[in-house]
């Protein structure tokens, strides 16, 4: 009888050990997880929108209107850019030529602008240098306005003058 008890307890301990192992195995599946890896690549990207494609400066009395505002009013600029780190995002503007009529010229330096909006700045137009109109140091969507003024003068010969302005949005 005593031998039987010993046999039983020995077998019992073995059985208990096996059951504990089996239980531990099952618990390893609770919780059970599975996964998927997600990635997203952001590339350098710029996008520029200018609200007006033409600007008109109406004939005005130089004494009463020494600075002629554009008839179209402020030009709204939207600059969107994704850049790397804190590299500068630069919006520049440059004239292709002086204001020219068939026979005469008004220096492009007579054209200036004031600006509103984060990062935007006023300036004087140039044909030789792209003037910085705005700059930012981080990716984002930026909106501002540029209000153009033409210096008026009695010295201007009669004529219809024109030039082309080019905006450039760039990141390094």
């Amino acid at each position, binding site marked *: 009888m005593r031998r039987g008890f010993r046999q039983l307890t020995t077998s019992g301990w073995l059985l208990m050990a096996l059951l504990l192992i089996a239980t531990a195995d099952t618990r390893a*599946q609770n919780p059970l997880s599975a996964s998927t890896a997600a990635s997203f690549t952001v590339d350098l990207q710029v996008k520029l929108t200018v609200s007006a494609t033409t600007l008109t400066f109406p004939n005005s009395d130089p004494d009463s209107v020494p600075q002629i505002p554009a008839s179209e009013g402020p030009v709204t600029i939207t600059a969107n850019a*994704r*850049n790397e780190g804190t590299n500068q995002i630069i919006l520049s503007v440059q004239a292709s030529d002086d204001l020219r009529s068939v026979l005469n010229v008004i220096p492009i330096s007579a054209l200036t602008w004031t600006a509103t909006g984060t990062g935007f700045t006023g300036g004087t137009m140039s044909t030789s240098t792209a003037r910085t109109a705005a700059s930012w140091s981080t990716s984002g969507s930026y909106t501002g306005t540029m209000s153009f003024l033409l210096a008026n003068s009695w010295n201007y010969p009669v004529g219809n003058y024109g030039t082309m302005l080019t905006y450039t949005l760039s990141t390094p």
Partner: protein
Amino acid sequence: MKLATIALAAFLVVLASSQDARAQSFTLTVTPSSFAFPSGDPDTMPEVQSPMVTVSYKVTGAGKTAWHMAIRATSDLTSVSDTIPVANIRWTATAPLASGIALTTSDQTILSRTGNMTQSTSTVIFYLKNLWTYKVGTYNTTIVFTLSSP
């Protein structure tokens, strides 16, 4: 003899609990194992969409035991030097899984049931807000689905 009876009773208790635990079995697979959100113009694609992710699962031997499926991300979307909040990811799922408006790094329950569930398949699509404010880089995270019972 008394000791033998106690030992035998203990074995039976362990055996019973072990069989309950052994009987409950989870099966869970997620495919594909990885995917990439496409890039696009944020103005025309305010969200970018993942390919369809398939979640297959099965619960057996649950008896009257409650169980849950949860979803989480292991981290924000992270590049070498920047992060995109993982909350910028939402998902839609086919029934019975629940959809969600913002992924988090902690578990969100998307299915709660009691008892067995035959082999089932749901599809999940993830949507990432596509913002101009993101900085250039390749961002990564891992999305984890978990089946568990108390």
